[in-house]
């Protein structure tokens, strides 16, 4: 990872000046300023120490509920050697000095781990150096403790605040020593969310809470049929609604950011909503009107039953084994479109002026918002300030910045601050859904019941095809290096993407949220065909020898079978997998994704209506070093519940080129009474830390449906789970 470049103080001032943060005024003037001005020591953009002993740590990434506003600053505080409770965490702006700022792929901790440690350690080192000069003692006899520097010779103590000015005059060192993990005091402990008090008192600022002088509110009518366009509109009634100021037609920007529609802009949200109700828009639906779930599924079915368009992997001779093996099993699995439905509906606030622009709102990709603003307004990026609010859930939806483009476009047109607010219906209708797909699996056992052949033919709608990003290394929705690839001598994987007007995108644990279900269900099927215990069968396929498996996808370049087998064994142990209790049935699943290893066990019973009732869930996770234990457990628990909800209820269907669901009455969500007891075990590890925002989710579907099979002998191959099929 990057080492902090050597920057002399003079250059540092200059660089800071250009970015215009205005935070370091103390440096230059303190020497000749007599009044009581706080001097700030700011050796990098990640932290700021004041002569008043204030310790500010900047949270660089968008906080979408994954806990990075707490966990990333914890890493800095650890190396800075300060009392966590005495630090103040402040959300940073979009700022090139902070490196990539986004929320996606569970990457924040792993990408920033080294940089943030360096940032904290650099500051600490400079404060020690300042004390050593003050005391005329060698640096190695000085040490930092709890926001102070002490020395080994006498009892003198200097606080960081007292050292701030002197430290700010020193050169920033090129390399600094980092702490040994055994000396960690903050990392690995449970810290509560830094915004908890604000959240529980209703004062935390989410995007939707942005209020700017003279701000108007816009709601937008978009074509209900995907790919349709506006041919005309009549705003005479809408303009009569008191409070409505403008009705604006929005032209298409590009095929991916679907902003086209007609906006009703008013003094307040309700007036805009009312105006929209009486707005008349004429649409040309286009070819999209012919699309529906049945037609899309028919194409999946056609493709999985013939040779796939893309050969992803082919080893040995799968056909020969299938022809000659007595134990061949074949099954077709299906997953539906899913909506993201973060609790905060899409919204964004833009204030586009002549030569500058300020932006506020919930996004996972502030950098994309800035680029969009530049392309829409022509204002250069360094004049576009992106303010990051808390984000009321992301789950991948806010990797798309279409709704921000809505706001920027309207504000640019009206020369007024504008907040765009989507209704829940807009949110579901104009989502970028988790791709739907069909997966035909076939596998064979030899005479000793060993897995010797495995074939997957997958066909899905593709988020890559949708955004025409075929150049990406990840062009499919399946993982050619994922388990059991590499363990089965005859292995074939083919994939055919389906082009559709239905928008698809990344949905928490993209790809994996489908593949972990199908792989971990079908491996379970094969265990039963082999008449072996599902846990033993998985371990047998993984083999006794510990291996580093090549993995050319996010989370790679390799994964460790040792760590995967470890979570499998631990989950079996914690859940008492092998002890049979009358009336309860267990299902197992394990998966590697994005660098972390997860095994989950679901225990169910059948209730009086012969429906499955979850008794308990166990999750064992190896994500390397854990930063924030409370946050980590929250992510695991939340991911399981979210995944369970999607498994049981989640489904968007398409009819006439539109989503048939529109709000929480038709798009059902898991609620408190369905949330089971979850036991979490985090593997103690000194491996580099991985993220955790997504990893617990994909495994739960198969763990649950495998338990249903154990209880009923009915194999769930299509999601969401059709309970009527179980009870019948």
């Amino acid at each position, binding site marked *: 990872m990057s080492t902090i470049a050597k920057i002399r103080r003079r250059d540092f001032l200059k660089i800071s000046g250009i970015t215009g943060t205005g935070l370091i005024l103390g440096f230059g003037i303190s020497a000749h300023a007599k009044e009581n001005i706080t001097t700030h020591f700011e050796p990098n953009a990640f932290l700021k120490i004041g002569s008043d002993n204030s310790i500010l740590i900047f949270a660089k990434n968008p*906080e*979408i*509920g*994954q*806990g990075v506003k707490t966990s990333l600053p914890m890493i800095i505080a650890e190396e800075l050697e300060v009392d966590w409770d005495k630090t103040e965490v402040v959300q940073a702006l979009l700022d090139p000095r902070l490196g990539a700022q986004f929320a996606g792929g569970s990457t924040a901790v792993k990408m920033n781990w080294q940089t943030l440690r360096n940032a904290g350690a650099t500051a600490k080192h400079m404060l020690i150096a300042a004390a050593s000069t003050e005391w005329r003692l060698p640096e190695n006899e000085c040490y930092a403790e709890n926001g102070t520097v002490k020395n080994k010779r006498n009892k003198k103590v200097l606080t960081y605040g007292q050292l701030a000015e002197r430290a700010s005059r020193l050169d920033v060192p090129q390399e600094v020593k980092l702490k040994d993990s055994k000396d960690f005091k903050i990392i690995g402990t*449970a810290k*509560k*969310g830094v*915004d*908890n*008090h604000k*959240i*529980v*008192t*209703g*004062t*935390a600022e*989410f995007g*939707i*809470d942005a*209020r700017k002088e003279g701000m108007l*509110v816009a709601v937008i009518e978009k074509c209900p049929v995907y790919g349709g366009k506006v041919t005309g509109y009549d705003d005479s009634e809408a303009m009569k609604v*008191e*409070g409505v100021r403008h009705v604006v037609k929005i032209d298409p920007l590009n095929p991916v950011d679907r902003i086209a529609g007609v906006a009703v802009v008013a003094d*307040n*949200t*309700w007036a805009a909503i*009312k105006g929209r109700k009486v707005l008349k828009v004429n649409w040309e639906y286009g070819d999209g009107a012919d699309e529906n779930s049945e037609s899309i599924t028919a194409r999946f079915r056609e493709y999985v039953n013939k040779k796939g368009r893309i050969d992803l992997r082919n080893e040995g001779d799968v056909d020969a084994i299938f022809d000659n093996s007595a134990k061949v099993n074949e099954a077709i699995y299906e997953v539906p479109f899913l909506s993201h*439905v*973060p*609790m*905060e*509906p899409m919204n964004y606030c833009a204030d586009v002026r002549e030569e500058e622009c300020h932006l506020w709102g919930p996004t996972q990709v502030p950098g994309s918002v800035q680029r969009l603003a530049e392309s829409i307004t022509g204002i250069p990026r360094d004049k576009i300030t992106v303010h990051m609010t*808390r*984000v*009321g*859930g*992301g*789950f991948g939806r806010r990797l798309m910045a279409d709704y921000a483009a809505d706001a920027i476009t309207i504000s640019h047109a009206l020369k007024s601050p504008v907040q765009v*607010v989507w*209704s*829940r219906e807009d949110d579901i209708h104009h989502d970028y859904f988790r791709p739907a797909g069909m997966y035909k699996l076939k596998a064979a056992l030899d005479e000793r019941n060993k897995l010797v052949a495995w074939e997957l033919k997958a066909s899905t709608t593709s988020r890559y095809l949708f955004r025409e990003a075929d150049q990406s290394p990840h062009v499919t929705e399946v993982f050619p290096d994922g388990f059991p690839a590499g363990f089965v001598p005859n292995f074939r994987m083919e994939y055919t993407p389906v082009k559709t007007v239905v928008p698809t995108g990344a949905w928490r644990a993209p790809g994996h949220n489908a593949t972990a279900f199908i792989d971990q269900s079908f491996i379970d099927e094969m265990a039963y065909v082999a008449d072996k215990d599902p846990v033993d069968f998985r371990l047998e396929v993984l083999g006794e020898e510990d291996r580093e498996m090549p993995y050319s996808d996010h989370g790679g370049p390799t994964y460790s079978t040792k760590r995967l087998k470890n979570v499998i064994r631990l989950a079996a142990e914690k859940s008492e997998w092998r002890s049979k209790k009358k009336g309860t049935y267990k299902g197992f699943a394990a998966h590697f994704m994005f660098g972390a290893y997860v095994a989950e066990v679901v225990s169910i019973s059948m209730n009086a209506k012969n429906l499955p009732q979850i008794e308990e869930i166990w999750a064992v996770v190896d994500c390397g070093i854990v930063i924030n234990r409370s946050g980590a457990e*929250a*992510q695991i*628990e*939340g991911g399981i*519940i*979210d995944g369970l*909800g999607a498994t049981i209820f989640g489904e968007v269907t398409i009819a006439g080129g539109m989503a048939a669901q529109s*709000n*929480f*009455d038709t798009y059902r*969500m*898991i*609620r*408190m*009474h369905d*949330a089971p*007891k*979850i036991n979490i075990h985090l593997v103690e590890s000194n491996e580099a830390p991985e993220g955790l925002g997504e990893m617990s989710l994909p495994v739960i579907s198969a763990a649950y449906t495998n338990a249903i099979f154990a209880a009923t002998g009915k194999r769930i191959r299509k999601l969401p789970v059709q309970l009527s099929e179980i009870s019948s």
Partner: protein
Amino acid sequence: MADFTLNINQRSYNVHVSPDTPLLWVLRDAIGLKGTKFGCGKALCGACTVHLDGNAIRSCSLPVSAVKGKIVTIEGLSENGDHPLQEAWKEIDVPQCGYCQVGQIMSAAALLARKPQPSDEDIDTAMSGNICRCGTYPRIKKAIIMAAAKGGAK
């Protein structure tokens, strides 16, 4: 447009709004009490929950003209943000994204006011109208139980 006098958090507010404006938008846009959140607009998710004469109601679906009684929002739940539920929520570290939590707390507060020692089933029933996509339900339940144990009916 019409004038309405509302009793919110033991204060009197005069607003001049359209009579069909949902209480939610009166709170957020006309008065500036933004703690109450918009989630679905159809009383399906609970993000907009406030108290009307002590009962948990969905402010997104109640026109201001129909409001008769005293309203309490999250801003008025406690003087210093220290209602036992707020304290428990922080202690248990409930929030993830945090967006739904105000509505969750308001539903829980109405429950505890009515039933200071709720059973598991009472909690499930009272909270069934509040959705959390982050899946914080187990911690919410723990926090309610903790607040109840500490006399959460405050």
